[in-house]
């Protein structure tokens, strides 16, 4: 087989291995952490500390009855969970996870798809995630699901603007869309969250909204919509939504740490070869893990926004702030401070 394709497949396998395991691990972390925050034990029966709970859950998902509502739009109803997984398992291809590796005289950049459009490709693919939510809401033929789907479409589009603008500001001083160049820039200077703290705050808030996490989980608000767009889903189809949600979170966290916290690099550490690759991957995973912990911490700390508050925050606070950030960074870049 073509060594180029082989290397790409190997790199995809590594990243897939990291991201497929996010959902089961987070299943355990989230339930134990929320139990800790709420002063109760949480799932602690299956295995030591309840560590095998994800396995038990997976078995349960497989053997549960898969219900399709009689009045549902069958094709769209079956398509929605698949559409949810599609962007979740493609966006991470542009995340670099180590320095260039030389194997048998070939230089292999440690990113699955080293394309020029880099960040744009990530944003393009992740913007398709909204279709699964909207279609699930529509196809279920259920009032609660429909409202969840409508909310999802409005919310995701609103916060995508602020997210994209805050990402754009990071690209300005680097002069490139490639995430590898952004990591190299941060190795040469400082991590981006120091000069661009405003952009980082906007990115952080917008990424909570983009992944439908509390305090922005209006598409699935349990207390008002039961479970929103996935009310009717059960068994493996529900598991697909669950998997997609956590994988999207991890992918967005990976983008965030790459843009603002040096990605796979550590200040003062310049390893190369296989050791550099392994350390780079471990560093990236560790940084993603910290972000996931913040996601959990915020979810069990803050109450949910009201819908009009959500829209006001997105359009009247975050969007102007992100434009201000863009202008500031552009001015600083022109002045040569960055």
């Amino acid at each position, binding site marked *: 087989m073509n060594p180029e394709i082989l290397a790409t497949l190997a790199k995809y396998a590594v990243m897939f291995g990291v991201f497929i395991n996010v959902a089961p691990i987070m299943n355990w972390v989230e339930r134990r952490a929320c139990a800790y925050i709420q002063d109760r034990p949480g799932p602690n029966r299956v295995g030591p500390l309840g560590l095998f709970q994800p396995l038990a859950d997976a078995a349960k998902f497989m053997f549960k009855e898969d219900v399709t509502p009689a009045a549902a739009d069958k094709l769209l109803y079956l398509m929605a969970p698949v559409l949810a997984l599609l962007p979740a398992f493609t966006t991470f291809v542009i995340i670099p996870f180590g320095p260039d590796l030389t194997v048998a005289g070939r230089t292999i950049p440690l990113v699955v798809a080293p394309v*020029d459009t880099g960040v744009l*490709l990530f*944003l393009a693919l992740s913007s398709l995630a909204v279709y699964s939510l909207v*279609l699930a809401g*529509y196809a279920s033929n259920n009032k609660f699901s429909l409202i969840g789907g409508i909310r999802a*479409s*409005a919310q995701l589009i609103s916060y995508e603007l602020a997210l994209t603008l805050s990402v754009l500001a990071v690209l300005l001083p680097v002069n490139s869309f490639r995430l590898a160049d952004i990591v190299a820039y941060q190795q040469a200077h400082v991590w981006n969250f120091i000069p661009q703290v405003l952009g980082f705050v906007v990115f952080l808030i917008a990424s909570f909204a983009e992944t439908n996490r509390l305090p922005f989980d209006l598409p699935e608000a349990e207390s008002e919509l039961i479970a929103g767009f996935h009310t009717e889903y059960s068994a493996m189809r529900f598991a697909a939504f669950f998997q997609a949600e956590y994988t999207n979170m991890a992918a967005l966290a990976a983008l965030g740490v790459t843009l603002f916290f040096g990605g796979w690099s550590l200040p003062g550490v310049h390893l190369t070869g296989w050791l550099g690759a392994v350390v780079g991957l471990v560093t990236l995973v560790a940084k993603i893990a910290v972000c996931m912990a913040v996601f959990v911490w915020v979810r069990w700390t803050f109450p949910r926004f009201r819908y*009009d508050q959500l829209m006001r925050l997105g359009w*009247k606070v975050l*969007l102007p702030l992100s434009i201000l950030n863009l202008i500031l960074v552009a001015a600083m870049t022109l002045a040569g401070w960055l």
Partner: protein
Amino acid sequence: MEKLIFLIFAAVAVGSSLVVVIHKSPVYATMSLVLTLFSVAVLFVLLGAPFLGALQILIYAGAIVVLFLFVIMLLNLQKSDAERSRGGLGVAAVGALIFLGMIGLVFWRTGREAPPPLTEDFVSLKGLSAALFSDYLLPFEIVGLLLLVAVIGATVAARKAPQPGEGGASSLLPREDFVVEETHKEARS
């Protein structure tokens, strides 16, 4: 390999765009439109313009068509069982003829030999933005002005005058948010 990918996605683009026109359910038509836009984005990438491909997905498939879907679901449009009128068919035929004529004109003007391949500089991000902000600055600014006018027009059209019986501006608050949201999306197109 490249030819095979082209054939697959060209066929998907043509087939799904037919579904957009023919299908009676607005939701299915909209989803086919997404498929069409996606396949056209792949064709852009094959032509060596990955930037255009990514923008096509980001702006059209990721934002504008989501809005179509939003409106369809908000109005709860069901399958239209209205018969297509003769007049509608006539208009469609005229439109198709004009379109075919334009395509024919393009082929006639460019001649039979294959057009020269796009230079690396033309499709690169730097080349594109340099051209946009130097040679084509005036048209670019005019488009920006046009979009601004459209935004203001949409805001004015969507904002209802406060009814005498209601509590004036405060009763419009949720409505106002909706208007702001609508118009910004217009700006992105």
